[in-house]
């Protein structure tokens, strides 16, 4: 018998291509995120770059790359680029608060520890989320569809291309800056203000997001799950928001008040209530799936890692303990108080675990991540431990950065593992790649952040840093004492009891948390899929709907990335901006 030809999976070319593309997207995300608050997704662009190089360019030189290598490329690239989202949300808040002399190296160390902790904590939950709960992970499923396209026949590829074309066209029509040539001809808004058209008051945010990425995610998620999110979004917008205005939490009497009613309702009522429901839902998830979860975790920790494809349990435990020690040390250095630093390390690690689980579950179900909500709780916890002194705020933001990066990396890991499951990758290899990716991405993001802050300043016209501005608002709110503890507690009660009733508290939480336009678009996608299933049957719909949805998501992701690069090229000296 001939020598068995084995499929190549992890190779230097796959890893290097992933790192290089990841670094480029990471840099673009830092700049565009500070400028416009946009964070273009990384997995799909890197997968398409990998596809182009391994299936388009390399074959010209009589070489080839496999689907599994492209999967490693996208795992590595998205791992590098994903750290930017967590850092631009938190670190610039310090500049906005007037801390101009803080140490970016400590910040980097805290973020690396957070990233590693997030990945290490989420790895044992692969069985729970991907195998037991079988969460759809729309982003991961879309990447798998792209990777599998050439092997699935011409018909499916054509469907995906149609989706891609629609996604690109619609996104171009809604882009207001940069590549806005189509938007100038057909001025389609990124959000349709249905409430305004119907004459609803401004604190009822009835709107529809014109986003093919969300509609595509809804198609993959399905009508049932997306509808749960939508129903609770209605509850938030039509019950909670008007009640808050009626009680006078946000002013609605004068014209200015009405104009600013919605952001205030969202900040003081909907977001805290939604975050509470997310926490309650996640806690009850642990209670109800405890046995199955423990069984899954045990089997991963005890597994013969050479045969099962899992990471060795001992390595995970060592990394987790190292993370705890590292985070405590960072807390001690930042605050100068050993006891508080130690407490912050333990609390920080527990919250990193919780946040990683919540974010992974949310993005697994809906492709959306309530990162700012996790930062809100992290900041509240850390300010409670360190106090609101100068060093306390510094330590709190540092821990917030660690939590945000951890949650982002954990969610990315899960999406990548879902892709891996669908193309038959060995989980251990993807996990190894994901572990070193943030170590590359974090210094890159922080260096660019530091350079941009020095060159343009944060909070000005050039780099307003809107996401960090939101965190600054939270910190000032905590310092001012106006923390909506009871609103959060109300959410916890709702999330907990919903989960007891057998409805996902996490889905409900994200519905209340997000502005209405997002869950509406997600639900619209889900309803389209349900309608198609009723007409054409479930099997046939799945065959066509998934590649079409993958195309829609890819069209949006690629257009947003190209637009980000275009904006940067214009801003560079001699670029014309």
């Amino acid at each position, binding site marked *: 018998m001939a020598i*068995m030809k084995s499929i190549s999976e992890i190779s230097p070319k796959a890893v290097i291509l992933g790192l290089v593309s990841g670094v480029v997207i990471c840099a673009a995300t830092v700049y565009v995120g500070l400028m416009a608050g946009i964070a273009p997704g990384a997995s799909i662009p890197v997968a398409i770059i990998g596809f182009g190089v391994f299936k388009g360019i390399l074959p010209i030189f009589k070489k080839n790359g496999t689907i599994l290598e492209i999967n490693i490329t996208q795992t590595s690239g998205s791992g590098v680029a994903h750290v930017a989202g967590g850092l631009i949300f938190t670190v610039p808040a310090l500049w906005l608060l007037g801390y101009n002399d803080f140490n970016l190296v400590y910040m980097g160390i805290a973020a690396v520890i957070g990233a590693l902790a997030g990945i290490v904590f989420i790895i044992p939950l692969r069985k729970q989320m991907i195998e037991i709960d079988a969460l759809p992970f729309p982003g991961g499923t879309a990447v798998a569809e792209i990777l599998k396209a050439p092997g699935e026949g011409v018909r499916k590829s054509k469907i995906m291309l149609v989706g891609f074309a629609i996604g690109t066209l619609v996104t171009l029509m809604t882009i207001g800056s940069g590549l806005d040539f189509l938007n100038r001809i057909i001025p389609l808004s990124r959000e349709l203000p249905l409430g305004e058209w119907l004459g609803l008051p401004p604190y009822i945010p009835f709107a529809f997001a014109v986003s093919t990425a969300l509609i595509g995610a809804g198609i993959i998620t399905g009508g049932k799950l997306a509808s749960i999110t939508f129903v609770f979004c209605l509850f938030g917008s039509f019950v909670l928001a008007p009640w808050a205005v009626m009680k006078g939490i946000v002013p609605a009497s004068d014209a200015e008040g009405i104009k600013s009613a919605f952001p205030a309702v969202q900040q003081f009522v909907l977001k805290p*209530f939604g975050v509470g429901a997310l926490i309650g839902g996640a806690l009850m998830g642990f209670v109800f799936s405890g046995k*199955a979860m423990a069984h899954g975790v045990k089997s991963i920790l005890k597994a013969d890692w050479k045969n099962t494809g899992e990471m060795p349990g001992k390595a995970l435990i060592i990394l987790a303990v190292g993370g705890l020690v590292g985070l405590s040390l960072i807390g001690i250095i930042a605050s100068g108080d050993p006891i508080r630093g130690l407490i912050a390390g333990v609390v920080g690690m527990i919250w990193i675990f919780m946040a990683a689980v919540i974010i992974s579950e949310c993005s697994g179900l809906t492709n959306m991540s309530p990162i700012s909500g996790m930062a809100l709780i992290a900041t509240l916890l850390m300010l409670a431990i360190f106090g609101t002194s100068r060093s306390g705020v510094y330590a709190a933001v540092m821990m917030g950065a660690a939590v945000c990066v951890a949650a982002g990396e954990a969610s990315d890991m899960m999406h990548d593992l879902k892709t891996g499951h669908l*193309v038959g990758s060995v989980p251990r290899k993807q996990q190894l790649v994901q572990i070193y990716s943030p170590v590359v991405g974090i210094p890159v993001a922080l260096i660019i952040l530091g350079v941009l802050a020095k060159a343009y300043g944060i909070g000005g016209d050039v780099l307003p840093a809107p996401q960090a501005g939101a965190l600054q608002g939270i910190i000032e709110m905590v310092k001012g004492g106006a923390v909506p503890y009871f609103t959060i507690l109300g959410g916890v*009660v709702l999330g907990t009891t919903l989960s007891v009733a057998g409805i996902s508290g996490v889905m409900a939480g994200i519905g209340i948390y997000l502005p209405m336009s997002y869950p509406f678009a997600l639900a619209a996608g889900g309803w389209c899929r349900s309608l198609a299933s009723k007409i054409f049957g479930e099997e046939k719909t799945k065959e066509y709907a998934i590649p079409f949805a993958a195309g829609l998501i890819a069209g949006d992701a690629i257009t947003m990335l190209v637009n980000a690069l275009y904006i940067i090229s214009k801003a560079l000296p001699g670029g014309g901006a």
Partner: protein
Amino acid sequence: MSAGWKYIVAVECFIFAMVLLAMGAVEVAHTGEWIYRSGSHEYIYDMVRHQPNYSYFIISTVLLSVSAVVIRRERKKQCVAKANERHEKEGAEYDGMLGKLTCEARKKIESGAGLSHKELLEWAAEMDRYEAKEIVLGIEKPLYRIKTGTDPEKWTEINGKMRRGQRIFHRAWTCAVENCPEEALATLEEALADLSDASAELGKITGR
């Protein structure tokens, strides 16, 4: 299957309590914030003294908890009944084409003749069909329908075998598409062994 009266009443109570809870949360937060803004340093004491309306909060929490427990119990009953009902209707019928193609592939690999790219793609397409008919309809769906009424450890064990088999099955597909027939054959056999184990274990529970 129609829902029982207990279920309907519990759902109505739950919705009512949810609205009540929202009102309670806003009410208490409002009072707390007002007291804080008034500049008092004895925050907790003032919260009690000014007596914000906690009744919304307490009543809604109790009502939510009770109705949630009733809904959960009723849903569990409905799930088991539904699973049995659907089990009768849906059958996974598969014509055994994958077995035939795999036998042919094995013969060609063992004889050293190899498989053409077209044959490999046909083999992979058949794997897709097999997954939709045998794995999804034959194992995955029935397994999830009995989730509520089965011992969690046993269920997780069967699910673990099925998912591992499914992942390796996907690897076999990738190997076939990527022109690695030997590894495709080896992994396909490994996957089918896991899947047949899972199917047999499932059969013991469902009696199929």
